[in-house]
């Protein structure tokens, strides 16, 4: 299995606090990996290292074999990484379709001069409408983000991330704040995403849905890697249950 993402011995220190210590896992092509851990385990910090928002004090991150540890976020995005954020951040001055169309046209935005010479948005809007349909938002494509509830905006995050045509999609707690039915539908959508050329890393607290849809899990506790492997094996471990569920001691 070729490696889409390789996280090697990542360490992050904020002042006197070691937020992440020795994080290590790999994601192959066409894979859906679940990343779990209790609150404060350092999952979001790890995610920020992968996206380039936080620079690690130790270790390296590689995307498709290329060491991207010192790359800025935009360069990683242009090279196949996408993130749907935990706290939804739609561009409030744009309608849903334009939020997604902007992401579809990300390749036009590598140079300001080239971007200034390009005017047509029709093809990108057409593709954006397809993507909004994929996440069940085509009916509200012309609405403004402020007019829609959280569940819709969570799906917008996913559509916008998919619009970047990523090879690696990071989903940060996409089920948080959704009711049970919405969470179930969203989890089904996430499970349908991986395919040739697209791998997904799902960071999520909804253990029921994560174990249902993710074939493999990476568990982090107190910033340190605790377990990494097939879901059934990982969840059967007593130390994982103790750390995550506070049970089985």
């Amino acid at each position, binding site marked *: 299995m070729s490696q889409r993402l390789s996280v090697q011995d990542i360490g992050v220190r904020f002042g006197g606090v070691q937020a992440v210590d020795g994080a290590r896992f790999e994601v192959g092509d066409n894979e859906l990996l679940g990343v779990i851990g209790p609150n404060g385990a350092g999952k979001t910090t790890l995610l920020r290292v992968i996206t380039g928002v936080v620079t690690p004090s130790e270790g390296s991150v590689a995307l498709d074999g290329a060491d991207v540890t010192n790359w800025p976020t*935009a360069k990683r995005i242009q090279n196949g990484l996408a993130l749907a954020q935990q706290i939804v951040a739609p561009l*409030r001055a744009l309608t849903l379709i334009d939020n997604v169309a902007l992401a579809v*046209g990300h390749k036009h935005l590598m140079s*300001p001069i080239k971007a200034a010479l390009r005017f047509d*948005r029709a093809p990108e809007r057409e593709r954006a409408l397809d993507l909004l349909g994929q996440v069940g938002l085509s009916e509200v494509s012309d609405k403004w983000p402020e007019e829609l509830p959280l569940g819709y905006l969570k799906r917008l995050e996913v559509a916008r991330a998919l619009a970047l045509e990523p090879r690696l999609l990071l989903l940060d707690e996409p089920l948080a704040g959704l009711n049970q039915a919405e969470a179930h539908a969203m989890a089904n959508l996430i499970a349908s995403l991986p395919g040739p050329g697209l791998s997904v890393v799902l960071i999520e607290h909804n253990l029921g849905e994560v174990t249902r849809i993710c074939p493999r899990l990476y568990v982090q506790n107190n910033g340190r890697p605790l377990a990494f492997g097939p879901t059934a094996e990982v969840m059967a471990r007593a130390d994982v249950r103790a750390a995550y569920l506070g049970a089985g001691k």
Partner: protein
Amino acid sequence: MIYEMVVVTNMAIAILFALSLNVITGFCGQVSLGHAAFLGIGAYTSTLLTKSGLPLTAALVPAALMAGTVGFFVGLAALRVRHDFLAITTMGVGFLFVGIVRKQDALGGEIGIAGIPAPDFGRPGLLVLSIVCAVAFGAFTVMLKRSWAGFAFNAIADDEDTARLLGIDVPKFKLWAFVIGTAGAGLAGALYAHQIRYIGPDSFGFVESITVLAMVIVGGIGSIWGVVVAAALLSALPQWFQFVENYKLLLYGLLLFTTMRFAPGGLASIVDRFKNRSARGS
């Protein structure tokens, strides 16, 4: 007739100056409190060139280039700061410019430079040149706003971090906004110097930076037509009513406060609200 020509020329220059700040603050969301420094750089550059015998038309491009080049370096420094810190940094640039000019004998020091050569084509020619420059820059900003660069600026102004996650090279776009905006201010400065025919450090101080910011905010941040209307009105008022000139800072401060409190989107948002209400009514 000369009076009307002067008023309209000043209006055109003010519109050009306000549109240049609109690219930085309106399109790209980067507040600048020192934009008058770039008006000054254009004014001093063009003055030195025309005093050495170059015609004004040949001094326009170097004035814009010089202001744009300094704008590039200020933009580079400004990349590391955001919001209030950016406002304070740009304000510092404004003070720095005035401080440097005051100490340079070659730039007339405290006294400034008087006797700037009148353009060969006279007042009517300067009026036409100012209108042409304002219209050309305005048309350029309309195109910019409609392009994918305008789309990216929109995203950066809205939420820089999200823009980064959409693959937008935010620093590069911000730098371009600074270069375009400051070059436009330099062009306006060249026209201003040859309209007034005297420049001094106080012509480009904090009050001028606040005046142009008021034009952008009152017109509606990012709205091209709104900024054009606000710049035309606010530049003409002190010429029509002497008391406005005397109480300029007080009046503009009040306008800024009122706009931010009651209509943060400026004239453009008031008109939009009115249009939406009419559309719903019909």
